[in-house]
């Protein structure tokens, strides 16, 4: 993260401004208070597998969708 930089992403169809240049998926989910353990995450319509949350990064202009998967069926 670089001081002073602001990035804007689209998270679940809402524009969100964040201080920094990029965040890993894990960091973003923590920052955005996604609390349940299972979440579907798509960046620019591509699915990020759970095992890749640390190594896939979100940057300025990305379209991010994150939806909780809740047990029960």
């Amino acid at each position, binding site marked *: 993260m670089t001081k002073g930089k602001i990035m804007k992403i689209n998270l679940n169809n809402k524009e969100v401004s964040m201080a920094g240049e990029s965040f890993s998926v894990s960091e973003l989910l923590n920052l955005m208070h996604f609390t349940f353990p*299972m979440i579907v995450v*798509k*960046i620019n319509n*591509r*699915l990020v597998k759970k095992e890749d949350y640390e190594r896939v990064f979100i940057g300025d202009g990305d379209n991010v969708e994150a*939806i909780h*998967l809740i047990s029960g069926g």
Partner: protein
Amino acid sequence: MKSKLEKLKGTCIGIAGCGGLGSNCAMALARAGVGTLVIADFDTVTLENLDRQYYFREQVGQKKVLALQENIKKVNPDIVVQAHDVRLGPDEVVDIFKNCQVIIEAFDRADMKLMIIEIVTECFPDKFIIAGSGLAGYGENNALRTRRLGNLFICGDETSEVSPELPPLAPRVGVVAALQANQALEIIMDDLEPAVGADVWDE
């Protein structure tokens, strides 16, 4: 409308899990006239299941896939039912559902829901998957909805987790199962296009 209904006869839909979501969704799709249903589950019908799952007293102790096949056939004997008594993992999902246009996720556990979403997105980028998420309890009709993310649809309220205080009950489970079935009909009857480039991230 008639030709659209005709289209259903030539359609194959997969249902992963035959509990509350899967059994009710299968019956809705069967009544609507879907030609082939591929159903998979490893479980057995219990007395406790009858509070929300589409089974009957005399079926307690039977394998769910066989009991569900029987119930579908009672409604419409012409429907082709492929029943798989199996515990689904990634390999089985790919093998069993490879000929289905649409796959219904009807598991109980959230980690299984994620597993099938990941494997279907990765291996079948042209198929649609319709998942259920958040259906416990009662009331809150208008919280139950459907969201689309590329080739993935998620039906439910995305918050109500099953617990001893918030059990799954027939009406809300049934609504979510019907949302999933209804979404499948829209995909087939309106020829929804799969999203372009909606696969898995790899670098």
